[in-house]
């Protein structure tokens, strides 16, 4: 628990990797870097428009908390109050300064920390021995900040490591110096080497994992989690402060393998600049000295093997304008570069040579440097602001009308044909209980395979749908699905499956297919009630060569009705229609009479009958469907509605049969 490697903010869950980029900002801390901090609502707008997504703002007694989501390409330099303060300065008149010029005065009586770095995966290792420390409760200012940020205060030594992390982004770690034997060695773990983490997880390590060790054993899993061996405890009087940088890929792999993701590991994964370690170390020592005057410390050990150096990228102003659609002048562009705190020189009227360092640019691979001009243009765009900075234009299409892929044309044509013949389209799930292609990580045991046929899905929903036929105003339901499947030969195809209930009056599927898709390839056939056919390849090579087909529908004004989980009831009513109501929309009238419980009225029969006096009488039969969203309806409830309907029909002069 005594470690910055533990989860800092409680809302950072180890398993949900999407939270990798969430960050809470406590506005008073911004004052460490800015001469003027705008009010929180202004901050919210500025950050949203020009930098990052703001999730939430919480007002507090001493300061506000801004919950934001740093973009992944800025997680190296902006997952800290320092980074956000720089952003705010770019987009406002506030001036940014890192006024912390902490000069450390080492005491020669304190032995410096012997460090040996054996792996290039540790890009920098700084350590300092601090003696005379005490385990004390943190000061009020620190506790207030932690309370606002949802962080737990432990003691001054540990709290300050966490504070420097959120202020500057650099993870720090304190070891109890008395428990560290000999030299601190940064090396790969031995196969099968054991370690117990601060939160009592027992780990067996392998040779891909970087560790911090002393002469005896592992002290910490580098960049991920501290160990029990040199844990700070109530008796600690001397600590070794570690301030280091580790390879982002290595930390990421170790975090994945061990299932431990911490605020420290997420900084290292995102390539926190090793160049900024010395400032963080000095910051910690200075803050601790303010809290505990009597501490003294050794000279700083700094093993810094491979500093990242800034590089220069040419940006063409013509290119900026071409990509953004703007007409910025050279001065416009250089003003923006200045706001972004970027150093540059003008090479020609059109070309700025921009110095790219750790701020704003997170270059992980040498070959990516050549794309940095686009990143600079991106920064220019967001300083301009997309709402105000990008001119409004008219859209000009590349051609008058586009084409569609063959399978899209065919699928939509078939949809029209089948719907005109009374079929209802459904869609079912792609993952099934049986198939050829299997998932490594299925979401459920019965959803392990990619479907090779539409049968399982469609058959699974046929019975339920048949029962629901009256709700659709139908006596029976024929359904179809058009979807992709993977064949046993690993080919992706678009298939059509049509199915209908096994009753004699039902539509003949073969006849339908013959009309809609003559000479088609039947891939599956179950008796007379299910046929699956091949429509087209779902090709590896995307080609548009067919005219689009417009689907026949008129659905602009659908008012969606939630599906009721309760059963429905039907009632039929038949009557001879009186002369005066012959022309009326009887269906709508009955629907009104039947009230809220009636979800559907359909006429299902109509005939004329010659009566005794020789006149013709018109008979009509209607089916009413009742259903509630709240309960199962009783016979009494439905019957009472039907009585009202009958009474009303009689009142119209009709003769109920």
């Amino acid at each position, binding site marked *: 628990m005594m470690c910055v490697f533990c989860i800092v903010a409680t809302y950072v869950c180890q398993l949900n990797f999407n939270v990798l980029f969430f960050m809470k900002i406590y506005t008073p801390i911004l004052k460490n870097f800015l001469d003027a901090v705008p009010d929180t609502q202004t901050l919210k707008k500025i950050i949203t428009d020009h930098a990052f997504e703001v999730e939430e703002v919480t007002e507090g007694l001493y300061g506000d908390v801004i919950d934001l989501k740093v973009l*992944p390409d800025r997680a190296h330099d902006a997952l800290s109050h320092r980074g956000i303060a720089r952003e705010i300065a770019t987009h406002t008149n506030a001036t940014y300064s890192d006024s912390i010029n902490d000069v450390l005065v080492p005491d020669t009586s304190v032995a410096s920390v012997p460090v040996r770095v054996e792996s290039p995966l540790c890009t920098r290792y700084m350590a300092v021995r601090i003696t005379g420390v005490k385990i004390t409760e943190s000061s009020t200012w620190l506790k207030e900040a932690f309370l606002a940020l949802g962080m737990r205060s432990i003691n001054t030594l540990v709290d300050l490591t966490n504070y420097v992390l959120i202020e500057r982004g650099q993870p720090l770690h304190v070891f109890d110096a008395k428990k560290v034997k000999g030299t601190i060695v940064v090396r790969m773990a031995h196969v099968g080497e054991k370690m117990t983490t601060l939160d009592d997880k027992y780990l067996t390590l392998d040779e891909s994992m970087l560790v911090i060790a002393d002469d005896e054993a592992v002290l910490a899993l580098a960049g991920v989690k501290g160990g029990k061996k040199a844990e700070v405890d109530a008796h600690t009087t001397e600590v070794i402060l570690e301030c280091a940088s580790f390879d982002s890929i290595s930390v990421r792999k170790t975090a994945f393998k061990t299932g431990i993701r911490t605020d420290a590991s997420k900084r290292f994964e995102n390539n926190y600049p090793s160049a900024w370690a010395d400032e963080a170390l000095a910051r910690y020592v200075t803050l601790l000295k303010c809290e505990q005057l009597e501490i003294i410390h050794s000279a700083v050990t700094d093993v810094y093997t491979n500093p990242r150096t800034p590089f220069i990228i040419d940006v063409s102003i013509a290119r900026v304008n071409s990509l953004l659609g703007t007409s910025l002048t050279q001065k416009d562009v250089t003003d923006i570069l200045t706001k972004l705190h970027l150093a540059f020189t003008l090479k020609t009227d059109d070309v700025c040579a921009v110095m790219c360092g750790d701020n704003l640019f997170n270059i992980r691979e040498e070959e990516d440097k050549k794309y940095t001009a686009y990143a600079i243009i991106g920064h220019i765009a967001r300083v301009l602001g997309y709402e105000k900075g990008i001119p409004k234009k008219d859209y000009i299409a590349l051609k008058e009308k586009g084409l569609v892929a063959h399978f899209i044309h065919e699928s939509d044509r078939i949809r029209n044909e089948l719907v005109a013949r009374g079929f209802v389209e459904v869609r079912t799930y792609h993952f099934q209980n049986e198939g050829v292609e299997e998932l490594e990580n299925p979401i459920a045991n019965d959803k392990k395979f*990619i479907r090779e046929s539409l049968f399982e899905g469609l058959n699974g929903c046929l019975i339920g749908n048949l029962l629901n036929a009256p709700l659709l105003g139908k006596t029976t339901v024929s359904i179809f699905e058009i979807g992709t499947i993977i064949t046993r030969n690993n080919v992706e195809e678009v298939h059509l499956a049509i199915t209908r209930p096994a009753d004699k009056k039902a539509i003949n599927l073969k006849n339908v297919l013959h009309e809609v898709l003559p000479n088609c390839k039947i891939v599956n056939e179950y008796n007379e009630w299910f046929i699956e056919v091949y429509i087209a390849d779902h090709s590896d090579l995307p080609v548009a060569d067919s005219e689009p087909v417009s689907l026949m*529908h008129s659905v602009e004004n659908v008012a969606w009705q939630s599906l009721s989980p309760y059963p429905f009831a039907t009632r039929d009513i038949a009557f001879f229609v009186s002369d005066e109501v012959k022309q009326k929309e009887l269906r709508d009238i009955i629907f009104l009479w039947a009230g809220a419980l009636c979800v559907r009225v359909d006429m299902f029969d109509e005939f004329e009958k010659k009566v005794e006096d020789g006149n013709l009488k018109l008979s009509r039969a209607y089916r009413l469907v009742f259903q509630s969203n709240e309960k199962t309806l009783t016979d009494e409830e439905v019957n009472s509605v039907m009585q009202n309907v009958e009474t009303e029909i009689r009142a119209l002069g009709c003769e109920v049969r």
Partner: protein
Amino acid sequence: MNTQGHLHPLSILINDITQVGTSLGFDVVDGPELESEKYNFDMLNIPSWHPARDMWDTFWVKTLAEKGRRVMRTHTSSVQPRYMESHTPPFAVMTPGKVFRYEATDATHEAQFFQLEGFMVGKDISVATMQAFFAQFFSKLFKKEINVRMRPSYFPFVEPGVEVDMSCFKCAGSGCNTCKHTGWIEIMGAGMIHPKVFDACGIDHNEWQGFAFGMGIDRLLMMKYGIDDVRLLYSGDVRVSAQF
């Protein structure tokens, strides 16, 4: 009784998108759903070691030795490199297609859903063109005047990247439940195609430039009609289609 059948609402919306897309000069295609890691991730500037891969919860498919690692595509963006490596610009293409995410399902999350990918490449296609296109596209799709606004965002395959909001198609900006009373709806991610993606597809990024966008179709459908549970769309229940 009723003799007319019913279309699935997703088919209707995808067809609407196709009609609008082709009328704006876009071709409409699709690529495979069982996709190689190469097209789904690598060619889109998402190398395996990159933390950005965490943005997608991926279904991995047991590997056939000769085919390399395969996934159920996590986005229709995979069609972009497939199309770009086999065609010469200028072009404008849309891909409405099924995608998959490894996640627990509930009323607003599904392991399978539809996404619309689109991209337009030419000599002078700019951020301003992109903005103009979005306004046209949504206005035609909703048959009313729709405004769009953009905010900075990040996707590995674009630079710069933006988040696109559209003015609420229900209340026209005055505030309603659909737009959570903000007047705006977050609708898509977009940006200028990353030069590294062009390079991977053999297209000279000094000569050609363009934008790409991605949008969830199910979510748009649910907002348009007020459908309350995404799982209903794949339930095979005719009571869903019957309302359309």
